[in-house]
């Protein structure tokens, strides 16, 4: 049923497919990671179903720079994307958004939560400032970010929005402030994209919610693979113990951490620890991030996105107003005279303040470096976790690595137990793993395969640009409403009416009800036209009768003036000696009838006044004439045709003999071809010599 398509040619969605083609092929749901497929970084997952297209996240790869850091946007046509959903503000989930909004032909709508948007603005401005690439390599600048802000719309947790038939809402993800998991519903097929999530409540964030509905597809992160986190109290104790022992031995503690997100959690832990240990009050804690300082206002405002614990504290004082932590602007302002704790970014020790301090402190074995979260492949932080003997400093010199390196993960990603538990509760039929190193992801896949062995769950681990295709035979349900629904039809009875499609819902109704159940309305257009005519009204009637089978003339008492009604559609009134008035209700057939009537009346006029009605022929005479005409026409067509004894016309062509009953039009003939030909010919003759029958 589902298959992973490899090869670059056939997986590319065709952006030019017409909507008709899309409905036929629309049952195919395609998921393509443009980034974060078997890797961590540049999250970007493309999804398309029923001609609707959603892109989840739009990040950059922190280990690369310039265009190389972008997801593979050239695999898709950005202009076809309807909705772009950003889960949280981290660079690997949001940082290519200004590029995507400003430098591509993307025309859809972008959504993120309120707090994500507020921090996104600050974070990216900072990113642009600190990223040391040449101007040509810059993906975007400050102005692009400001412009992108106007295009970003906000969504609150649980708020349901609908864009172009795509319904979506988000749940708390628990990863950082404002982090969301998006549930997308297209024509009844639900897809959950978790982004980064954590099922563990911490000091300020709520744990990720378990959605109320089971999604059909769950696109889930696999950062930690099959690893298990230690319980939070244990990690916190290790963290504080390492710091306490280091500073009590006169050492310095470096905590390289990303400016926003987990850092706030660590600061809450440290502040609380210092509060409970008065003996540490003379040891300074520095937090070297002007960015985080600017973001504090955001943390102070969106307390409603945090957990109850923080909200209760908020009632008394602001928990983010730290008592023992002072900001540090740069290394120049840092008075490095004794034991201290410094939290600095970036988390990967690539450059910046954290690297400067690392270079300064790495040779002293009294010092310690606590790596508090996930580190991306290819960064120095990843290297020192393996505790090499020597490291290369920023100035190119090689120095011994004597400082202790501790890896205590506080990164709020789900571990194996959380992921398994989460999926067990949801039981989605399809699981797509993204956002994880290939090895970790593979191990997690194996684990999940064994866990869901007895269920019908399918697991996918697509690489970047590799599409996963699934089929959902969605049954279109419609609601018959209003007058049309007064009686439920039995098998074989016909149902005819207007189908109104709005998004993916169908309603069938009688035309009269259209105005009642939708914003649309129907109209009747009555046409009234005066045609100059000076002749006798009887002439019109006579001529019409030759053309049309039904020409009624109601008594004059009812209509005041002589009137003709043709096929119950067109009314002709002889209102004065100089003109007749025609009236009908617009519809293609009536329009045609009226046109012929007009043409006829004009013709009579042209022939002059001398035309007078000829006495009506009797039915019998008519029939006789018809026989004569048919006979002579048949002769001219088939040669040998004469009336037989039973009144039927006997037509002989070569050896074949056909008998045609002129009254009923039935043909008796052994030769199929001849019979059909005669039938057709006779039909045409009838059309020519008789008035147009009333439908």
């Amino acid at each position: 049923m589902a298959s992973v398509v490899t090869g670059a040619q056939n997986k590319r969605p065709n952006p030019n497919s017409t909507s008709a083609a899309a409905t036929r092929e629309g049952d195919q749901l395609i998921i393509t990671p443009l980034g974060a497929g078997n890797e961590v970084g540049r999250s970007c997952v493309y999804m398309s179903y029923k001609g609707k297209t959603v892109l989840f996240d739009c990040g950059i790869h922190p280990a690369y720079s310039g265009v190389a850091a972008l997801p593979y946007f050239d695999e898709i046509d950005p202009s076809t994307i309807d909705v772009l959903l950003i889960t949280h503000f981290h660079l690997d989930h949001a940082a290519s958004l200004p590029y995507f909004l400003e430098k591509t032909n993307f025309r859809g709508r972008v959504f993120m939560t309120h707090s994500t948007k507020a921090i996104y603005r600050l974070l990216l401005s900072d990113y642009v400032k600190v990223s040391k690439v040449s101007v040509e390599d810059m993906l975007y600048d400050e102005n692009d970010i400001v412009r992108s802000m106007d295009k970003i719309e906000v969504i609150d947790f649980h708020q349901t929005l609908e864009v172009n038939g795509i319904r979506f809402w988000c749940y708390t993800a628990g990863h950082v402030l404002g982090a969301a998991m998006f549930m997308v519903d297209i024509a009844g097929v639900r897809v959950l994209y978790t982004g980064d999530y954590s099922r563990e409540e911490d000091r300020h964030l709520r744990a990720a919610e378990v959605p109320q509905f089971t999604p059909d597809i769950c696109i889930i992160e696999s950062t930690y693979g099959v690893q298990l986190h230690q319980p939070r109290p244990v990690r916190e104790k290790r963290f504080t113990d390492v710091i306490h022992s280091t500073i009590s031995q006169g050492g310095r503690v470096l905590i390289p951490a990303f400016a926003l997100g987990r850092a706030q959690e660590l600061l809450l832990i440290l502040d609380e620890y210092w509060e409970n240990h008065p003996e540490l009050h003379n040891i300074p804690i520095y937090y070297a991030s002007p960015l985080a300082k600017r973001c504090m206002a955001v943390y102070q405002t969106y307390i409603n996105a945090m957990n109850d614990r923080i909200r209760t504290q908020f009632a008394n004082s602001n928990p983010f107003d730290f008592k023992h932590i002072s900001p540090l602007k740069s290394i120049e302002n840092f008075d490095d005279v004794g034991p201290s704790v410094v939290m600095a970014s970036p988390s990967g020790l690539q450059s910046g303040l954290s690297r400067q301090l690392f270079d300064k402190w790495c040779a002293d074995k009294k010092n310690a470096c606590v790596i508090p979260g996930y580190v991306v492949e290819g960064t120095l932080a990843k290297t020192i976790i393996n505790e090499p003997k020597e490291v290369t400093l920023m100035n190119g010199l090689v120095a011994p690595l004597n400082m202790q390196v501790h890896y205590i993960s506080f990164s709020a990603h789900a571990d194996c137990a959380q992921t398994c538990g989460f999926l067990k509760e949801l039981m989605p039929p399809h699981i797509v793993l993204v956002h994880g190193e290939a090895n970790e992801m593979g191990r997690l896949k194996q684990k999940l395969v064994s866990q869901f062995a007895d269920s019908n769950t399918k697991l996918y681990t697509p690489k970047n640009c590799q599409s996963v295709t699934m089929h959902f035979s969605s049954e279109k349900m419609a609601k018959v409403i209003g007058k049309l629904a007064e009686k439920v039809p039995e098998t074989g009875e016909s149902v005819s009416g207007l189908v109104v499609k709005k998004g993916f819902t169908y309603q069938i109704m009688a035309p009269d009800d259209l105005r009642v159940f939708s914003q649309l309305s129907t109209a009747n257009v009555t046409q009234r036209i005066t045609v100059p005519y000076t002749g006798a009204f009887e002439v019109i009637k006579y001529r019409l009768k030759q053309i049309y089978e039904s020409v009624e003339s109601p008594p004059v008492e009812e209509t005041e003036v002589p009137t003709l009604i043709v096929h119950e559609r067109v009314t002709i009134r002889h209102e004065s000696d100089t003109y007749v008035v025609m009236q009908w209700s617009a519809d293609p057939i009536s329009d045609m009838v009226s046109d012929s009537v007009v043409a006829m009346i004009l013709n009579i006029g042209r022939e002059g006044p001398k035309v007078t009605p000829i006495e009506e022929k009797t039915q019998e005479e008519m029939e006789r004439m018809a026989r004569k005409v048919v006979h002579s026409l048949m002769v001219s067509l088939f040669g040998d045709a004469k009336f037989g004894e039973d009144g039927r016309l006997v037509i002989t062509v070569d050896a074949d003999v056909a008998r045609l009953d002129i009254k009923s039009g039935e043909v008796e003939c052994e030769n199929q071809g001849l019979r059909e030909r005669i039938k057709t010919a006779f039909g045409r003759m009838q059309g020519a010599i008789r008035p147009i029958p009333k439908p």
Partner: protein
Amino acid sequence: MGTSVQVTPLSGVYGENPLCYLVAIDGFNLLMDCGWNDLFDPSLLQPLSRVAKSIDAVLISHPDILHLGALPYARKHFGLSAPVYATEPVYRLGLLTMYDHYLSRRQISDFDMFTLDDIDAAFQNVIRLKYSQNYHLSENGEGIVIAPHVAGHLLGGTIWKITKDGEDVVYAVDFNHRKERHLNGTVLESFVRPAVLITDAYNALNNQVYKRQRDQEFIDAILRVLRADGTVLLPVDTAGRVLELILILEQYWAQQHLSFPIFFLTNVASSTVEYVKSFLEWMSDSIAKSFEHTRDNAFLLKYVTLIINKSDLENYAGVPKVVLTSMASLEVGFSHDIFVELATDAKNIVLFTERGQFGTLARMLQVDPPPKAVKVTMSKRVPLVGDELKAYEEEQEKIKKEEAVKKASIVKVEEVRATSSHLSESTKGDSMVIDPASATASPKGSSHFRGQMDILIDGFTPPSTSVAPTFPFFENTAEWDDFGEVINPDDYVIQEEDSNHMVVNGKSLDVKPDEASVHLLLDSTPSKVVSHELTVQVKCALLYMDFEGRSDGRSVKSIISHVAPLKLVLVHGSAEATEHLKMHCAKHVCPHVYAPQIEETIDVTSDLCAYKVQLSEKLMSNVLFRKMVENEISWMDSVAEKTNEKVLTLLPPPSALPTHKSVLVGDLKLADFKQYLSTKGVQVEFAGGALKCGEHITVRKISDSSQKGGTGPQQIVIEGPLCEDYYKIRGHLYSQFYLL
């Protein structure tokens, strides 16, 4: 076939009484709002008391007394235990509003309708929702989805959409379509054709001036008084419309660099603003935007000083200032006391920004012409001293002993423990006892009206239809001599005494408005309520300006006709307003307009027939849709087939069915058509309601008055002599429609 819907008003129809309506959907009882008034008159809640136990869910739309005031009382006394649904701001600000009312009441009377604990208990089971969150009810509400949507008017204000089986019931009261400084306009207009719309007629007869003009007049009125050394009193609600006023003042003060102090004084002022600061995501787009860009929280107030204590105003006694203070009704709270102080000075102004509730002092003062003098009761809580305190303690001791004895006789408990527990219990619940002597000694001998009806007004008689408590009628006996009204100096003597007491009172109540500290008030020293009446000469200016933030009559009508519900229920509005709107809507919106009386149950079950069918793929592949606005539309011929018990499938017809009558779909507006024709180079003009195109052709729309609510098709007539123009214009006319 459809979902059964019944509406029963429990309060708040044909009048301005609090809102409270019972909506039963397939037997599931939803209580829409649970309001009370500022007077806390239990007689208003009679109808609620009869049904409270059968209620399955309560939906609250706004954080003010009129919409949620009765929650604690109903929970305590009527056994209303259903879960309550509200948005986060409605929950939070509603809670603060209730605290403020309770504290204000408690300071001047032995208010015992409910306690702070009751308020907390009532708000504990509030389920907080986000705007546009589809919340699926469970158990016997299975299948019902409720969703709050932006209403405007107050922060967090909600219009409720209740959906069952695809049929919508929309409850929209007190909405505002205008975007304001701190709020977005309502999204009511985005709901089209709900099965039932329940809305209010409160503003049906009101029309508003332009916002800009009104704001300017408001600022001018304030500045005029301030520049003449006067004080501006703005009686406001605790946490509702006051937010908008604060922003207006902040903005103007910032623009003009004014230095007149502004005070926001309620028992919970600082908490209110603190919480409001964290509700940015519920406010207008511009506020959200400014925060995202510059992190400027609009409610980081620079000019408005938040105070929770009237004594803080003492330092500014003679200084021109603006005071925003609760309650808006002037019945109780700081506004009541401050009004009494300010009223006698012609320099000052009392600026009402909302219509006072019926039967309140604010309402009396808003009549035209305003009364010359009003009688008010000044009450305050003073600690017991001397003999009284002794008597109280003796009393307590006696009770303690009695109960201890009683208890000891029933159960064998340690004597000490029993006594101590009783001590704490009795001091908590019973610490405040009225001194009967002082009550009877109050000057005009009308002490039996004290409590919630402590305001007596000159020249006021309530209409016979009113259910508000009746007030005694006092002849205005003011005597006049050559120098004007004869003044009784005693009144003023008392008043001076009064303000002295107030200081003491204020100091004793120096509490932080937190939940924890609020409880301190209950455990405070034994005290009593002292009250007396006095006549206040109203010399200060009185002014009413509409800052209620509700859509005005004209807009309400146009919104209703845009929403075009199949059935409409009108509530909450004076009898005239309700009738007026009812007539209007019956004529222009829909034939089914209801305005039920209290406890009158109306059945608004839709008479809509509907059944579900499955559309076969074969059928749909032959249907070509045409796009019209948001919809796609097509004609479909099919035959039904029952595949199994439940499912009915539509298949393509086996043979060609007779052609159907063709349908023209589209909405022709003559004005738009005129525009269109002129772009096509046709000479076109309106003449006598018809569109004259070219020389001879006329296009008319026949409004069929027998078709109520315009549910039938539009009737368009095109007529003219046979000529080329005729066909040309007909072609243009056809181009405005889709032919199916």
